[in-house]
């Protein structure tokens, strides 16, 4: 029993001695999605040799980094049996505000811009959290409402204008694209945040409380967990990470527009769900979400490489999501049966 090797233990079925190695592998929730990724990689690289190059791989990583950050936030919310549909609007609003500050005060240190973004995001997230916990509004309704509120604020704030590349300081653009450590900063940020969230969810009591609250809210209260605080926290974290993602978004795309990140919320939910996060709460792991985002990134990338028209890509993505969810259900059912 090696404790260190329990990555993704929330999904791992308990190991009994009778079953073999392959069965155990199947019990790891991430096995299915890893297999799908592997098959996809093999198939695509046969069709398009350009796929298996370091450059292309870096491309994929760059493209999914922001998705990873926000999906991790979404995952924490989903684990508590909530949902945050407002992340896209938080990104839009924070990106706009930070970009305007940078345009007005080009001398602003990048570090303060990042902090500002995170602070603004946290305030917006706490609005969701307060409405949901103390206002007793169902999460899907609360964040559906705040999605339009925050998006409306973007328009009200910017008067419909947007910030272009030339209006942003050069060092700000480097925040995401610079490679002082060999890899693009953006990728490094995503990795660091993934590690932090992993540690938080696995090695802190508060992190475990998040699972407890989603798994059985009444029992959590019996066990002395302050469920309101835990829920408030996840929405604040969701805001914080979305705020950070907003700054990175403005830096990477060198602009802030009124429709920045429109529709992004559903992508984050998708990456989480494909990664094995349960929408009924209680289950979900960081490695799973990383794989989920990676799968989405690879699909997008490979559909381009094998020259499937950009227009059919979305359909293929949607279909793959459905296949992933359905096969997941059947795999789980089979595992349950074999165990008995």
């Amino acid at each position, binding site marked *: 029993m090696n404790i260190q090797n329990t990555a993704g233990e929330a999904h791992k079925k308990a190991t009994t001695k009778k079953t073999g190695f392959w069965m155990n592998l199947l019990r790891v929730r991430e096995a299915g999605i890893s297999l799908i990724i592997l098959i996809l990689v093999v198939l695509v690289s046969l069709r398009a040799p350009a796929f298996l190059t370091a450059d292309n791989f870096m491309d994929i990583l760059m493209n999914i980094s922001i998705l990873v950050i926000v999906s991790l936030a979404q995952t924490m919310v989903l684990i508590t049996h909530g949902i945050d549909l407002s992340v896209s609007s938080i990104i839009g609003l924070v990106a706009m505000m930070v970009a*305007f500050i940078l345009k007005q005060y080009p001398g602003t240190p990048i570090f303060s811009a990042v902090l500002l973004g995170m602070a603004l995001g946290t305030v917006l997230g706490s609005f969701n959290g307060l409405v949901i916990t103390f206002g007793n509004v169902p999460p899907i309704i609360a964040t559906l409402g705040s999605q339009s509120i925050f998006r409306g604020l973007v328009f009200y704030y910017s008067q419909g204008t947007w910030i272009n590349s030339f209006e942003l300081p050069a060092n700000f653009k480097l925040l995401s694209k610079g490679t002082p450590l060999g890899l693009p900063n953006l990728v490094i940020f995503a990795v660091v945040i993934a590690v932090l969230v992993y540690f938080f969810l696995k090695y802190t009591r508060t992190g475990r409380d998040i699972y407890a609250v989603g798994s059985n809210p009444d029992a959590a209260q019996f066990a002395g967990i302050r469920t309101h605080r835990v829920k408030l926290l996840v929405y604040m974290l969701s805001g914080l990470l979305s705020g950070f993602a907003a700054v990175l978004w403005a830096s990477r795309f060198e602009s802030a527009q009124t429709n920045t990140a429109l529709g992004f919320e559903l992508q984050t939910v998708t990456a989480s769900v494909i990664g094995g996060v349960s929408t009924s709460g209680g289950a979900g792991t960081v490695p799973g979400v990383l794989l989920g985002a990676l799968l989405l990134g690879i699909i997008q990338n490979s559909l381009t490489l094998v020259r499937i028209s950009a227009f059919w890509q979305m359909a293929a993505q949607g279909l793959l999501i459905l296949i992933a969810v359905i096969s997941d259900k059947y795999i789980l059912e089979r595992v349950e049966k074999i165990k008995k």
Partner: protein
Amino acid sequence: MKAENSQELKPETLIAEKAEHYSLSTLFKHWEWMLVGLIIAVVLVNTNLSPYFLNANNLSRTSSDFMEIGLMMLPMVFIIVTGNIDLSVASNMGMSASFMGLLHNMGVNIWVAALAGLLLGTLGGVLNGYLVGRVKLPALVVTLGTYAFFRGLAYGFLGDQAARNYPPEFTYFGQGKVFGTLVPFSVALFAVLAILFGLVLHKTTFGRYLYAIGNNENAAIYSGVPVSKIKFRIYVLSGFISALAGLILAARFGSTRPDNGTGLELSVITAAVLGGLDINGGKGTMYGAALSLLLIGLLKFGMGLMNIQSQVQSMVVGLLLIISILLPHFVSQISSIRKDRIRWKSILAIVAVVLVFAAFFAFFFWSRAAVIASV
């Protein structure tokens, strides 16, 4: 532990066959009255603000803008009453309209193309219904998947092209008026369907089953309600009506683009929830949903006359949505607070929250001043 011996009055009669008197409140709940009040308020305010508000031509023109939302809202009410959701309605609408557009571009007869669009939309509903009703996957996850899938098919069908030049006998469905009146055809269609859906929801066994499922799915199963069959049917219905809405939209615009109606699913759900439907199922009426559609329509129309951007209009609707659920809860909370239980800690927390939000908006308006100066 259940409370025993509650509310048992008049032991001599045991039980009466009917409630003693029918008040209007049995027909209309508080919620619907609140909506009526809000509608009157919006009408009064807007009439004062703009002379163009109570203009029959304007109202006639603007009313057809909301009919796609209205149509999709009807089956959505059924779905939400059962405690489920359909995020794919707007994508389905785009898919069906695009398919029709594609066939039209290929020279197929417009009526055949329209029929094919309806069929495809219904098939989309069958897919949702099968996965939710039979495979028993969570509705949110399924319709999130089909949300992307259907919209993707729409792009696949038309790419960056648009379908145009629909014959006038087709565009009549979106632009025409019912003979001799100012009522747009689409509004008349919506009105007829709304009454039909309302009757089905409130006056049939099917409607009763929907409420039973939404209030307690397990008990419904134990009582012999064919739950999976009913779920299947409402999603198929939703697919069909979404396709119908797609055709109406195409007819109204006179063209189809694959991104038609993107994001409308959220407007549809907002309208339904503002109408008093509980997102967890079991509560709400068709009157409420229809009234809320009227309220949103009038509110947006009024704001449009004042040149308020459409996104800010949505913001007002979003606020209304949250406040409408928040307010009743807060009223009951505040009235139940016991004075001797108030703690300094909670007061401090409230003050801190207020300060944080005040700081946020101070910053918001301060930095916005610079924006305005630069525009």
